[in-house]
């Protein structure tokens, strides 16, 4: 047992960076770390972290997902249990939803007492990035600048599983120089859906094309999202259709690390 939570002046956050951010978008992870540090948290990165298991769970492979979840719990559980961290924060609505809502599904029933205890412990203190910034750290103004128009696409898991919506919008509205514009039919799914994007590529693409039309209609220079998976879908389509990938993770905008014209990245 190290120092207890109350002894620390600054809350200590364990960053769960997610496998997609780790391998495809490390800049998003760094932006998240910088934001947390700037707004009063100490960040640690448990290096043995990998994936939360969501892809396997959503595809119906619960035995496999359970093994991945157990790895997550074995790593993060003791940190929370021993009071070494106060929170687990991830820059992803869907990975947080996996931990907070679906781990308990994986460990339902008898014979999982230890996991059930860890799930309860961990899910209690796991937050999506903007949720943690606003609800726990009390951030109202991020002190970032962006010289263009921004719109916000609420990713489905963030919106409907976690019911996190006002937090990212409030933070985006505090960006200096940015004009926030509406995204038509903003609550419609972008069509990513994990393996759905592969197994039902035609439907996924048709859904995504509608989102692309909305994005173009909004005229926004940047579309902020809370999940890099949805960002991959939208940018993948935008770029293929020759419109430039203007979807960015909300952390990059809030951290001021987004160039004026993201499509030229």
């Amino acid at each position, binding site marked *: 047992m190290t120092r207890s939570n109350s002894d620390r002046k600054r809350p200590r956050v364990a960053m769960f960076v997610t496998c997609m951010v780790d*391998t495809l978008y490390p800049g998003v992870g760094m932006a998240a770390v910088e934001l947390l540090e700037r707004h009063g948290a100490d960040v640690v990165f448990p290096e043995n972290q990998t994936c939360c298991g969501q892809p396997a769970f959503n595809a*119906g492979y619960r035995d*496999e997902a359970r*093994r991945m979840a157990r790895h997550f719990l074995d790593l993060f559980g003791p940190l929370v249990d021993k009071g070494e961290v106060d929170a687990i924060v991830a820059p992803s609505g869907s990975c947080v939803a996996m931990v907070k809502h679906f781990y308990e599904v994986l460990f339902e029933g008898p014979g999982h007492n230890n996991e059930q205890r860890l799930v309860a412990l961990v899910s209690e203190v796991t937050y999506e990035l903007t949720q943690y910034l606003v609800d726990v750290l009390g951030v109202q103004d991020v002190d970032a600048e962006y010289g263009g128009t921004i719109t916000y696409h609420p990713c489905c898991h963030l919106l409907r599983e976690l019911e996190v919506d006002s937090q990212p919008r409030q933070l985006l509205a505090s960006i200096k120089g940015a004009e926030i514009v509406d995204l038509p039919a903003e609550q419609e799914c972008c069509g*990513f859906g*994990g*393996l759905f994007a592969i197994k039902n590529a035609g439907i996924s693409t048709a*859904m995504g094309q509608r989102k692309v039309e909305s994005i173009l209609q909004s005229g926004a220079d940047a579309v902020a999202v809370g999940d890099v998976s949805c960002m991959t879908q939208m*940018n*993948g389509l935008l770029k293929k259709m020759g419109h430039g990938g203007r979807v960015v993770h909300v952390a990059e905008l809030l951290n001021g690390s987004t160039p004026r014209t993201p499509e030229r990245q």
Partner: protein
Amino acid sequence: MNIDITAPYQTRVRQALADDNLRTALERAMSRLSEKRAQAVAAIDLQRMRDEARAIKEHAIKNLPELLEQLERNLIANGCQVHWAQTADEANEIVTDIARQRGVRRAVKSKSMATEEIHLNEALEDAGVKIVETDLGEYIIQLAGEPPSHITAPVIHKRAEDISALFQRELGMRPTNDPAEMCAAARKQLRSEFLEAEMGISGCNFAIAETGTICIVTNEGNGRMATSMPPVYVAVMGIEKVVPRVEDALLLWQAVARSATGQEVTVYFSVSSGPRRPGHPDGPKEMHVVLVDNGRSRILEREYADVLLCVRCGACLNACPVYREIGGHAYGKTAYSGPIGAVITPLLADDPKTAKELPFASSLCGVCREVCPVKIDLPRLLLDLRHDLTKLGTPPKYERAAIRAYSNTVEHPGRYHRLSKLARWFSRFLPTNKEGDLTRLPPPLSAWTQSRVLPRIAPRSFRALWSDRGGKDMGSSNDG
């Protein structure tokens, strides 16, 4: 209809996605229905209505055997004949026997999903009974020789232009796209059918146990005519439609109307509590109620009882982004499409593998759960069915192998790092555009790159950047 509902799933989806008229029709109708629903539920305490509606249905499903017995007793006391059918075939036999014994040659039917589910029309036609659908939407698709593509809006897949062309061909109507004129043409035809029919058939929205009453909700009044004009009336209902009290049916009626079409209530609420009695000027001479199980008890025994709460309002279809792209026929030879159809079709089937693709036809966006008036957690049920189906081994073998290999990797951070490095190295040999995004991946990932690009694995991972920065690891020992 350009979709062959008996073709394999991927073929049906391809046909649907290629059908521009279908997508125009869906676009027009679905945005209107969703807007009207949004207005109708904004006018009330929606959460309270959902809580109350769910409580009623939950109570009914929990007490199903007792309520069904009470319903049967009261129906019989009202002079009805009650029949129990374990399977679709049994239900069809019961109805065709009733028709045969009374020499029925012509029957009219009010819109009913239960009879679509059991394919009653085919059974009656095989028995030599001409059956005419009297709901306007159902009438249109019967003329076209098509099955319904939506729970409450069976003809949602057709544009007004398509219906006009059909009426010109089948009814000799003059060219027009005016809905009122088309409706008048159908009404004229249907009037004589009502007068000549020897048997009327309906489904059932709610069956009230305490009074022995069958309720149907419609907007056209055809239901009232089909259930009261012909001498024989047969109601076909799924056993989950029973509710204890009159006020339960009234509350659910509003929940259905607001969710389905954005109405406060439907135009008609037709109740039948038995055949004509001495002194009554009209009404059927005989009334039969067929209680259909057809897989429902089996659902109840498993962990899927929540789907039996469904009141068949179709709100989840109207909100579903997948349904909007493909419509109902792409879900195959089933009465139920959209999110509820993707759950209930494999559950009702004797072999769930016959609808093995449907639970995967969802991005799990969750909007269906948000609009459901009885708060069915459809995404959760889809996830549970996916689990069942993967256990049955329905997905391709390579998928299981890949997921298994992935989980073996994820469990061991060392392997995970090596795999990331390998992928980074390998991705250097894949074709890219000038921005460096991957444009062509090998199968099965080619399904992604056909319409999308994918970023290359980053030159340096987050963990590498973190270690450059001298950041803290787990803070397990050095917490300073």
